[in-house]
């Protein structure tokens, strides 16, 4: 960075003048006699109680938690801190699709060196494979989003429309819904990178491949495979026909539309029950969950939308203590998962937590007493391997921009993935990668 000598002088001067008295720097500090303090950045709901539970059960390690923003906001702060060489926390919450990005930025500690490989059997296989690269453990899985179809049972029943089990039936249902209620849509195309990614995953599309351990500069990009194209074509077709709305997910407009009978379905995820129960008051009790429609009748292909992990950053002062925090904040902690399941509504990736009858057997008032986790849990077990690129932000942003063009009519849906593929390859090559398909 800057000349270190005059920086040091300047810093000494600032300290002398008292300017620095309040300077706070994140990071574990080993007091001679006190416990090790580990700083954590995370944006889970209700997380304070989880931290309290950890601190109550540990004498040698204490967690200092900060919420510096949701998703992209926190990543922006992490990236600036890594550029500056200081300011990052010891432990950071990172979503699955971002792990390779932080790995290539050389930001994450291999927790395998601190015994984290022992946890392999604890977590859903797909999650563990995304969190690791060979025996290098870059992240400890926390929550996921196995996908299933949420639908308005009352409306489907009332109009005698069968709940779709294949995507062809889904498209048929979309037309029928439009016919019975011109103001209604089967769902919204939500402009959410993770959601579209989950749908493509479920269709058997594996567009990305990257392993730093095998080859740092090799990346696979194949968005134009038929398994990927068929998803965009189906949804594009529904949007073009006016049978699918275009509200961005999680906006007030989309939430209100879900709650007013304007949308009849939502291809949602394991964390949805909590999300919708809190925000949809008018239609509570009228919804139900069914397995995702299949591309081939009778198949059992599944996908995941969302999910997060704990990582240990290279700026951690005490990586071993930080690894303990990453493994045990949620881990198998009963106290933590009690909050995680019942207040924060996370879908647990720890297998024994997901298998617990208290979770699978839980009846949801919002779904009229349906035990929806009986659907989500097998999905998570069924999920296979799915990889991401080390520049997934760029991929999702470009895909979003291209679908936005298609929605506004300035691009044909059939060219969305081809154009994204072209842009991503150009970007990857500029970044020094060798791209294979």
């Amino acid at each position, binding site marked *: 960075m800057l000349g270190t000598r005059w920086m040091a002088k300047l810093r000494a001067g600032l300290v002398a003048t008292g300017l620095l008295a309040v300077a706070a720097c994140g990071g574990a500090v080993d007091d001679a006699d006190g416990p090790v303090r580990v700083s954590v950045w995370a944006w889970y709901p209700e997380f304070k109680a989880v931290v309290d539970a950890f601190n109550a059960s540990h004498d040698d390690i204490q967690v200092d938690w900060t919420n510096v923003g949701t998703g992209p906001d926190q990543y922006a702060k992490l990236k600036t801190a890594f550029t500056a060489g200081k300011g990052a926390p010891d432990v950071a919450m990172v979503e699955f699709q971002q792990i390779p990005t932080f790995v290539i930025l050389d930001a994450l500690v291999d927790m395998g060196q601190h015994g984290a490989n022992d946890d392999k059997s604890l977590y859903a296989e797909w999650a563990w494979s995304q969190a690791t690269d060979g025996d290098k453990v870059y992240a400890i899985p926390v929550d996921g989003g196995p996908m299933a179809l949420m639908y308005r049972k009352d409306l489907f029943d009332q109009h005698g429309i069968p709940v779709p089990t294949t995507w062809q039936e889904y498209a048929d249902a979309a037309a029928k819904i439009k016919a019975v209620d011109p103001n209604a849509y089967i769902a919204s195309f939500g402009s959410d990178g993770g959601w579209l990614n989950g749908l493509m995953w479920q269709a058997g599309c594996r567009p990305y491949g990257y392993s730093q351990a095998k080859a740092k500069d090799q990346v696979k990009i194949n968005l134009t495979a038929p398994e990927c194209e068929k998803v965009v074509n189906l949804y594009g077709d529904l949007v073009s026909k006016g049978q699918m709305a275009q509200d961005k997910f999680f906006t007030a407009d989309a939430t209100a539309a879900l709650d007013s009978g304007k949308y009849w379905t939502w291809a949602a995820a394991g964390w949805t029950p909590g999300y919708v129960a*809190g925000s949809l008051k008018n239609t509570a009790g009228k919804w139900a969950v069914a397995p995702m429609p299949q591309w081939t009748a009778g198949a059992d292909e599944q996908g995941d939308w969302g999910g997060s992990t704990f990582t240990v950053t290279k700026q951690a002062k005490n990586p071993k203590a930080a690894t303990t925090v990453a493994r045990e904040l949620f881990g198998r902690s009963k106290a933590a998962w009690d909050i995680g399941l019942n207040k924060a509504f996370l879908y647990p990736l720890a297998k024994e937590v997901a298998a617990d009858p208290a979770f699978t057997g839980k009846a949801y008032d919002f779904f009229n007493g349906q035990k929806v986790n009986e659907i989500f849990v097998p999905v998570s077990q069924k999920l296979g391997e799915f990889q991401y690129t080390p520049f997934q932000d760029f991929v999702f942003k470009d895909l979003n921009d291209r679908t936005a063009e298609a929605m506004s009519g300035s691009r044909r849906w059939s060219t969305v993935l081809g154009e994204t593929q072209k842009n991503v390859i150009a970007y990857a090559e500029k970044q020094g990668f060798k791209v294979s398909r």
Partner: protein
Amino acid sequence: MTSGTAGDTTAKTWLPHVLMGAGILYFLVPLLWVVIAATKSQPDLLDSPALWFADFNLLENIEQLFHEDGGVYGGWLVNTALYSGLSALGATALAAAAGYGLARFTFLGKRFFETALLGMIMVPATALVLPTYLILSELDLVNTMWAVVLPSLLSPFGAYLVRVYVDESVPAELIDAARIDRASELRIFWQIVLPMMRPALVTVFLFTLVATWNNYFLPLVMLSDADLYPLTVGLTTWFNTAQQDAGNRMLFNLVVTGSLLAIVPLVIAFVLLQRFWRSGAAAGALK
């Protein structure tokens, strides 16, 4: 007022009044919406007509506002006032001294410096934030209030405004006379020049105050501790939370109520201070 046509305000002026009425509607309706929306509970906010009242829930909203996340909103208010007050005071002081120095003295490099002032105004703020972050990070000042206050002291425009003002309104003879009386330079500045510059200083103070009060990008990048956030960053964080974790924390009513309370102090200050503000602006514009 100076108008040459004041007086015939009846028949001929109906058109301007209709147009001004339309303007008032345009500028006022969004603000009215905030006021109305702040009185609604979260469900009413989504369901009831946008520009009319539902159940009066303002006091509950305010109470919830100051209790959410352990009462962090109150801290944001204090931070915002503190950061903008300190920045405005500091920037005004620097601009006062520099403007006076440029207007009434000659020294090496002065001309170059003056020419550079306009150029400084044009540097995009976003271009400076990142390198400033990296430098302040080296000094361990990131994530402290100084990371927001110190860069906000920079007000090339303030210095420029003061220079123009001194040039026109502080007679050099007065300063020379004081020098003959053997007053020190500092004393001349403090006792003679400063009081005469007051209108320009009020203007510079208000501008820098508003600029820091409204600043979003700088604190967003510099601060990572929610207790240090100013209102702009804090409210945006809540808005994001409301969108991402709507199930657990539908905070839209708090975002709206919080926005209202963030706006009110400045609106009141501006209505009350508009006289000062305009006299300063006029001084800058015309003297």
